[in-house]
């Protein structure tokens, strides 16, 4: 425990800015992964235990596309589109077979794919740590805000995540497709009776969730190292986010992810070894005081 460091940081504006920015990017990446998880749970009623794998594939796709083309935009596109296709196939071929089944059965199918996907990455890209490297467009002087360092790439990352959050929020509540998705979450039988292909909606939602996780992976690729199994810790953390925010709530995922990001970045100063423990402790406290999460609705 190092409370002096934490107090020292809280009283210096430079450190405050640096830690808050790093907390925000952790939070935003987590949000992109967690919002897919919460969307899939809300509509399909499935806890996608293999969601971390999409984050991992997003990062690897982006790295390969960047190495081949040298274009950052294409790398992001490859990460997002590749995982969307993967999500669609995964849902249609495998997950759609276990919808009525026991929760354990669904978890087991996902667990199997966590094992398989990790090995697939190991076979294609090798077991060692990889790094995509920062695109040259962002290798510029960092900004200085109140004495704190803010790399421009962080601003882009936060911006893209925010845009995704807003588009998703408005799209779900205003657009026709969004309304159909919410209706399918509520009463799939009625929706399909009205002549709407619910299978397509399920596949689409899964693809969307996979795409968001893949985008997060692609965005994280320049700033984190890539390794098979990198999806695991992200998966656990985004579970914490969805549980804290409330399963099925997009706003909850955003707030939960930002809280967790800040806990991580400031916690690493005050409790360097117990940072993870802090997150779990926070989750326990939230769940015990409000079992459905901060923004969760009471179970129907």
């Amino acid at each position, binding site marked *: 425990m190092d409370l002096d460091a934490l107090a020292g940081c809280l009283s210096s504006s430079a450190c405050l800015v640096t830690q808050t920015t790093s907390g925000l990017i952790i939070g935003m990446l987590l949000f992109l992964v967690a919002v897919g998880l919460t969307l899939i749970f809300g509509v399909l009623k499935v*806890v996608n235990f293999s969601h971390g794998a999409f984050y991992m594939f997003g990062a690897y796709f982006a790295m390969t596309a960047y190495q081949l083309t040298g274009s950052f935009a294409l790398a992001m596109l490859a990460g997002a589109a590749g995982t969307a296709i993967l999500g669609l196939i995964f849902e249609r071929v*495998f997950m759609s*077979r*276990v919808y*009525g*089944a*026991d*929760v*354990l*059965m669904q*978890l*087991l*199918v996902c*667990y*199997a*794919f*966590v*094992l*398989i996907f*990790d*090995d*697939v990455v*190991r*076979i294609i890209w090798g077991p060692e740590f990889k790094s995509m490297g920062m695109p040259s467009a962002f290798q510029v002087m960092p900004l200085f805000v109140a004495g704190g360092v803010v790399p421009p790439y962080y601003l882009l990352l936060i911006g893209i995540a925010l845009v995704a959050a807003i588009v998703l929020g408005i799209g779900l509540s205003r657009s026709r497709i969004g309304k159909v998705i919410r209706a399918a979450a509520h009463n799939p039988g009625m929706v399909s009776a009205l002549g709407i292909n619910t299978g397509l909606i399920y596949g689409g939602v899964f693809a969307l969730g996979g795409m968001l996780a893949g985008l997060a992976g692609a965005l994280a690729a320049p700033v984190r190292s890539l390794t098979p199994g990198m999806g695991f810790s992200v998966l*656990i953390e985004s*579970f*914490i986010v969805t*549980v804290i925010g409330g*399963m099925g709530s997009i706003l909850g995922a955003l707030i939960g992810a930002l809280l967790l990001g800040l806990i991580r970045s400031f916690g690493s100063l005050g*409790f360097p*070894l*117990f940072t*993870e*423990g802090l997150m*779990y*402790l926070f*989750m*326990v406290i939230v*769940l*015990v005081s409000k*079992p*459905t999460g901060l923004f969760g609705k009471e*179970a129907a």
Partner: protein
Amino acid sequence: MTEPEAGRAQTLVPARNGAALQRYRDVLIALIAFAVLASLPLFTGSKALLDFVIRCSAYGLFATSLNLLVGYTGLTSFGHGMFFGLGAYSFGLIMQKLGVPIPVAFVATLAITAVVAAIIGAICVRLKEIYFAFVTLAFQMLIHSTILSWASFTGGDQGLRGGIPRPASLGIHLSNHVHLYVTSCALLILGLLAMRQIAQSPFGYTLRMIRDNAARASFLGIDVWRAKLTVFVLAALFASMGGMVMALFVSGAYPEFAYWTISGEAIFINMLGGVSTFLGPMVGTVLLLLLNDTVTRFTEYHGIVLGVVILFFALGLRKGLLDFVAEWYAHRRETGEGR
């Protein structure tokens, strides 16, 4: 979720023989099983085989105890491994720091587990389904982080090193491989027998009723919260026993014992063997360990092989192996009687 849960529904058929008779039968089976296992070293000098049985004992106790929660009570715990880790660490630390006789450390570890499980259980068991699963997972990770960060006491990510002293007591020399083997078998058989008695007792049938219809159980005057807490603590005790066998076997304790993947493995074992029969998790344990051992020998990519096998069980059979056999047997008998 759909009302009667297919696959884990276990019909409430009253025991055909008297309860006492069935108990004698269980004890007899346990004695025979112990005699067979214990005489194994007389026929084979293979250390690998004995090691395999010891590992099966540790994981079997752990997985079967999880089935008390998952299969009998319908409590899907994602953090049951915390008690496996707690057992291994408590036992190892008591032996290393205090140097008491092994039986004392054994009982003390069970007492510690009971207290911790009662506190965690009191918080967890009032939550439902997926939330119960996640809070137990959170507690597991909390214990794992504590082990990692309290390095001066637990050895951090290196684990408890330097070996666990195994002084002789009651004429049992656990540093002797055969003695360790027989003790592990005895603990396994005793643990299984005790869990079988819990499952077949009136309390066990109360648990099944809570699983099938908690509201109704509550109307009938059963304190559901207390029953769930009781089985949570009981299951924790047996998981802790499994952890102790593991700690004795590897002569140490490692943070992986408390990591969430060990809970995932236990759930997988349960699904592999089947949750609707008492011995399902035991069959699953043997299957998984065999699978792990053979696959790692042939390929470094054992994740793919294991994943495909899991998919075969989850999508193909849609139930555990022993569930499958039991249903096939019941079906055959039914059609046989119809003729």
